[in-house]
């Protein structure tokens, strides 16, 4: 039941490039990544695209489909009108390498800047006891497949290259939140450093990141806003000096 699909693909590299129109067969049930692969195997042997799992689990196949940041392996061709041309372009916030592949090294640099998890020294391996409800909050953020669609969509860096230096981005705000809510992590002041060193203050809660997250992580509501609120509390709450409160803050 193959039909023809009009696909428009951005081809080129850092120096030059543009949209190319192709016609390609599409079968029932196929996703955009399938038709890109068909183009690659039959018409453009050197078309560059990243992918791994084809099941929305690895976050490799991020691109913009009709201008929206999406996973190509989870976007059904049938979700578009039959006569609609589907346009695929590389992520806009990151420098293009070739065709649909961009240089996402920014994200790996930011990952290295987030202070690591600190395990309580007195707790030997196997001794940890945690309630399911307590791990679930951090688990939500650990679902992240590092597709970087949220990073790509956040206007703080999408439209302002110069902000990249001081802004870790939503993916790493949830990393900080995850550690902050981790029942065992010992490192203190994660929220304050998020604000002061990782650019949390530059976020103005537009929620665009949450909208594109394929894992449906509530980036803004569950990570960014709670951290922002607590930063404000900490800043104006002299009582934070008390150890007991600090402990509770870690839990909340």
């Amino acid at each position, binding site marked *: 039941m193959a039909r023809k699909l009009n696909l428009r693909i951005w081809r080129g*590299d850092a120096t030059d490039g543009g949209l190319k129109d192709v016609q390609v067969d599409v*079968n*029932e*049930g*196929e*996703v955009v990544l*399938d038709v890109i692969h068909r183009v*690659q*195997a039959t018409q453009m*042997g*050197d*078309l*560059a*695209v*990243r*992918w*791994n*799992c*084809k*099941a*929305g*689990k*690895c*976050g*490799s196949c991020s691109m913009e489909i009709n201008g929206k940041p999406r996973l190509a392996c*989870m976007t*059904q061709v049938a979700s578009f009108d039959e006569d609609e041309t589907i346009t695929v372009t590389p992520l806009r916030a990151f420098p293009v*390498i*070739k*065709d649909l*592949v961009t240089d*996402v090294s920014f994200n*790996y640099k930011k*990952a*290295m800047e*987030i*202070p*690591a*998890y600190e*395990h309580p020294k007195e*707790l030997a*391996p*196997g001794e*940890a*006891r*945690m*309630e*399911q409800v307590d*791990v679930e909050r*951090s*688990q939500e953020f*650990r*679902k*992240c*497949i*590092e597709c970087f669609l949220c990073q790509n969509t956040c206007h703080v860096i999408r439209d302002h290259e110069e902000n990249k230096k001081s802004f870790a981005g939503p993916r790493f705000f949830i990393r900080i939140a995850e*550690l902050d809510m*981790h029942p065992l*992590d010992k490192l203190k002041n994660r929220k304050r450093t998020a604000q002061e060193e990782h650019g949390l203050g530059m976020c103005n809660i537009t929620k665009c990141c949450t909208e594109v997250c394929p894992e449906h992580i509530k980036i803004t509501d569950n990570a960014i806003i709670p951290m922002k609120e607590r930063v404000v509390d900490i800043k104006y709450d002299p009582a934070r000096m008390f150890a007991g409160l600090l402990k509770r803050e870690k839990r909340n």
Partner: protein
Amino acid sequence: MTLERHKYDVLVIGAGGAGLRAAVEAREAGLSVAIICKSLFGKAHTVMAEGGAAASMGNVNDNDNWMVHFRDTMRGGKFLNHYRMAELHAKEAPDRIWELETWGALFDRTKEGKISQRNFGGHEYPRLAHVGDRTGLELIRTMQQKIVALQQADGREFGDMEAKMKVYAECTITEILKENGKIAGAYGYWRETGEEVLFEAPAVVIATGGVGKTFKITSNSWEGTGDGHALALKAGANLVDMEFLQFHPTGMVWPPSVRGILVTESVRGEGGILTNSLGERFMFKYIPDVFKDKYADNEAEADRWYEDQDNNRRPPELLPRDEVARAINSEVKAGRGTEHGGVYLDVSKRIPAEVIKKRLPSMWHQFYELAGVDITKEAMEVGPTCHYVMGGVEVEPDTAAAVGVPGLYAAGEVAGGMHGSNRLGGNSLTDLLVFGRRAGAGAADYVKSAGANPVSDATIKAAADRIEAPFSREGGENSYSLHAELQEVTHNLVGIIRTRTEIEEAIAKITDIRARSKNVAVAGGRKFNPGFHLAFDLDNMLLVAESTAKSALLREESRGGHTRDDFPGMNNQWRQVNHIASFDGNQVNIKAQPLPMLPKELFDLFDVHELEKYMTPEEIAKGGSN
């Protein structure tokens, strides 16, 4: 242009669970480490693992311990496993899981707040530590973050976070280099630019994962092209047990574009049942004699087991994977399959919708988005998919050193021996951790005593020439079509059911494709060119397919992931034999090698009557090797 060069103590090829664990160990032993991988950091296969990691922590049923786990692993592998690997794995798996927790991992919890464990095929007790159905993601992320933690410590000490450990992502190794018979480094190209790169190091850990892409229907990604298997062969190492491939019983079958994508075994672990188009729960018909005392032969008992595991036998849906895959294959062949050539797998009748969504969230998501099926209301259609290779590099169990090549180590799916003829679900993730750590330690010890082994210019030139070759040909073969042809051959002729004539035909066809592959030409430039990448991957897959076909031809019995239509049934004489593949520069040769016998203390862990099903009377009479 000058060649990009790097020097390290240890190279780890592969950033899946095994590679990352090896890298951590080697770095913590004070050495400098390069981690090299074909994809971006954090995207290796391990990230896709769903069900969990098997370790006998005994958190859910305190009857569990390493001995029970060891027995299950040997049974699952039909006693072809290297006993020492199975022993080390069973003993060390709990420590490796707990260690992840000290690095920040957050596993699902029991009511007492311990790490929760779930049931899986072939495991006597609930044993798989898990995080919903995204356990592999948790493993990868935890180790990725552990590596960042080590880099941050290096940053504090040396002023440069990458001073002692660096990840080289999207870089493909095409050759392992030796000088004077010993490891000297590795050569490869950057996927991004196509430019070449040399890594010099006296020790190399291969952790490149599996070979699924050799087959047409597979749960593996493009990375699973058997690179490490082929690199090791070419470097003079051996592959053991290459005839054994695991066809996971439950891959998606519809729509065609997702055919092969995995449906985790947890679906059955959580209570999913298999039925054919007549509505029959057919697995009761397929319980082999060796398992009759452990699996329920009627629905009532199978259903009771979910509530009371001490007084009932397990449902046959939880038989080891080879059994379930063959059963599904037979049902479909007998005309009792579904519309799209699978069988039905149903959780919706037994488990409430909200529990399904909580315990199997990514399965729900996967079916809803890719197949338009709501698994809380309808059955899934499933069928076998090529999932895992039991065969791999022959290693010394304690150090993970590749036999015959000083300085070479292998761990994870690319290593052989641990799983015998069939791997139990969940045993891979802990295999990665246990033997990844051992490989890192083995390599570190070796480097400390062996010292540097510089690479000669002649060796570099030979490696460089090989990369250049496909660009200098014109109008040759297309790597995409050769790959498709190979997949067709393996699928049809050395797939889940095999016979002599078909395997012989496969060997002839693989030889032909290999001859034509010498003539592959690549269109376009070097920059991120998948056609060029596939040309190299294809060469590796061909060597893997040849090893598999030739080993399969010789093994005249059916065992685990190797089923011969012309030799049905297990033969106890064959249990004493491993097939060892080696490469003479021209073709793959297979030799039979005696399998090491269990020592008495492990022999005695089993009931003799059980061992009689697998061993010859002479072996039983000996009662162990010592």
